[in-house]
């Protein structure tokens, strides 16, 4: 990427940041000693750069001669593209916060969550956390060929639960997911709503200090949405900080007390849900 472009973007971000300076004044006024006000996550000028493979352009695709020529010319791998997904994000999250992250597709929301969870190393800057933030994303460990029963146990172990904890939680998970006898069938036979419900039930079975939720509530019926929102509220009360990425702005407005608007990897606005969402809708 052109150096000048990055600099120009950074300058623009500073301007907009200064314009937004007073949008989130609460933290400055809160006493530092109270448990509600103490920071749980500090993101300090975070940059995340991704390497993406297999993104060859049309002309280069599947041509061995071109690939060889490129090697000889030392142009490096064309299939490897660097994506600067998060560009200098800074904020402080505190106990009791439920922070919604909104933005268009590709604005860096999911990447930011993964970086907070400590799953993506920062290119520059740092993320400081109190305890271990965890992503509500057990999906990747589940296998769709296996039964719900097996997947519940597998998912719980993948999140680091002990056999005793799994036994204690098992019935709750089945109840909460509401899939009933389907728990004995392979997950590949589930409807998309049932799959989503089971995944959320497994993922939320563990207590988290800092919880990061990425689009978990996109599927499922109205009843399940209500149940999962209740559970997020519970987690927020007991634990501390919840981060929520969703395209459904209603969910964010109902659940969160603060919203961060990401645009092209930078914070465009940060503050009260109503204000930020209305500004986002106008943009």
């Amino acid at each position, binding site marked *: 990427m052109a150096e000048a472009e990055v600099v120009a973007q950074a300058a623009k971000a500073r301007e907009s*940041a200064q314009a937004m300076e007073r949008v*989130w*004044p609460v933290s400055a006024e809160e006493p530092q000693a109270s448990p509600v006000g103490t920071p749980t996550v500090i993101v300090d000028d975070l940059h995340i750069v991704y390497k993406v493979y297999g993104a060859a352009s049309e002309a280069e695709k599947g041509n061995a001669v071109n690939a060889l020529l490129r090697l000889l010319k030392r142009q490096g791998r064309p299939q490897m593209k660097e994506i600067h997904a998060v560009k200098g994000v800074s904020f402080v999250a505190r106990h009791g916060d439920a922070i919604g992250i909104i933005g268009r597709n590709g604005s860096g929301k999911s990447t930011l969550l993964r970086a907070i969870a400590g799953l993506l*190393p920062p290119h520059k800057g740092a993320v*400081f956390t109190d305890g271990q933030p*965890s992503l509500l994303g057990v999906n990747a460990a589940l*296998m769709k060929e*296996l039964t719900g029963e097996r997947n519940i146990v*597998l998912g719980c172990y993948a999140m680091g639960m002990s056999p005793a904890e799994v036994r204690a939680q098992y019935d709750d998970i089945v109840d909460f997911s509401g899939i009933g006898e389907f728990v004995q069938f392979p997950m590949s036979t589930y409807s998309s709503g049932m799959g989503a419900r089971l995944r959320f039930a497994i993922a939320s079975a563990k207590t988290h200090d800092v919880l990061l939720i990425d689009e978990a509530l996109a599927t499922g019926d109205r009843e399940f949405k209500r149940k999962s929102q209740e559970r997020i509220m519970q987690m927020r009360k007991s634990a501390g900080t919840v981060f929520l990425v969703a395209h459904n702005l209603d969910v964010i407005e109902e659940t969160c007390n603060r919203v961060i608007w990401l645009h092209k990897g930078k*914070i465009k606005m940060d503050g009260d849900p109503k204000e930020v969402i209305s500004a986002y809708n106008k943009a």
Partner: protein
Amino acid sequence: MSQPESAVADAQAGGPATDSLAELARRHGLRRAIARPSLPSYVRQLWARRHFVLKYATSRNVSKYSDSALGQLWQLLTPLLNAGVYFLMFGVILGQQKDIPNYTAFLITGVFIFTFTQRTVTGGAKSISGNLSMIRALHFPRAALPLAYAVQELQQLAWSMGVLTAIVLLTGESPTIRWLLVPVALLLQLIFNVGASLFMARVGAFARDMNQLLPFIMRTWLYASGVFFSIPARVDDLPESLSFVRYVLELNPVAAYIELMRDLLIHEHTPPQWAWTTAIFWAVFALVVGFWYFWRAEERYGRG
């Protein structure tokens, strides 16, 4: 630590404009999200995930054959068919090797023992690069993945060993007290496999062309491991100028594990003297180096 550039960050930090976020983090005892744990605590974390490793390995084995009509029967059929193919090729079509006693058992032992290492190392090389979505979503010591692949192959090996025992008995061997050492030999090989697959997991995670290259490396290794022929008999025929080949073949870890197993199972087979020493040396060396090498990049897995 770089100073936050935006004014909004300073406002949120709840302090004066000169107070950096890193400073605030230090004051409240917050730690960096990404930091590699020390080696002892890494081992403890890995031990805490032992249930996951076992469950993941079993689940992979179950799901692997879930599409086929015969299902789990393939765990038994795969080694049986393998034995059949190799016996047809090297025992029947290419002709028995007359100077090797009980060539059938000799061959099948070699094939199964080599396959154990080959599959574990190949699986290990893909264990990180093939599970990026899990690595990017969940927190766990990454070594759990190559370990799970090794456990998966160990479960598969249990079936192969059953088949192998049957074949060895059918070819006229009788059980001896030495068979009790079979688990010891397998344990040494398992330790070597874990070490080698941890090493290859890191290589495979960052050098993506490895997965294209690995089949060729494995085939070369197969031919150099004395699966089809007897290494001591072969190296004695070598001309003086090629004596280095002798050392390469004799130092080959898989050759040592194959020779050990043949020695234990086949009565008339005399192993070379180097077998036990080489087997133990490689097990310890591979585990220590492989584990250390894998752990050194712990915080970088999943970056792409």
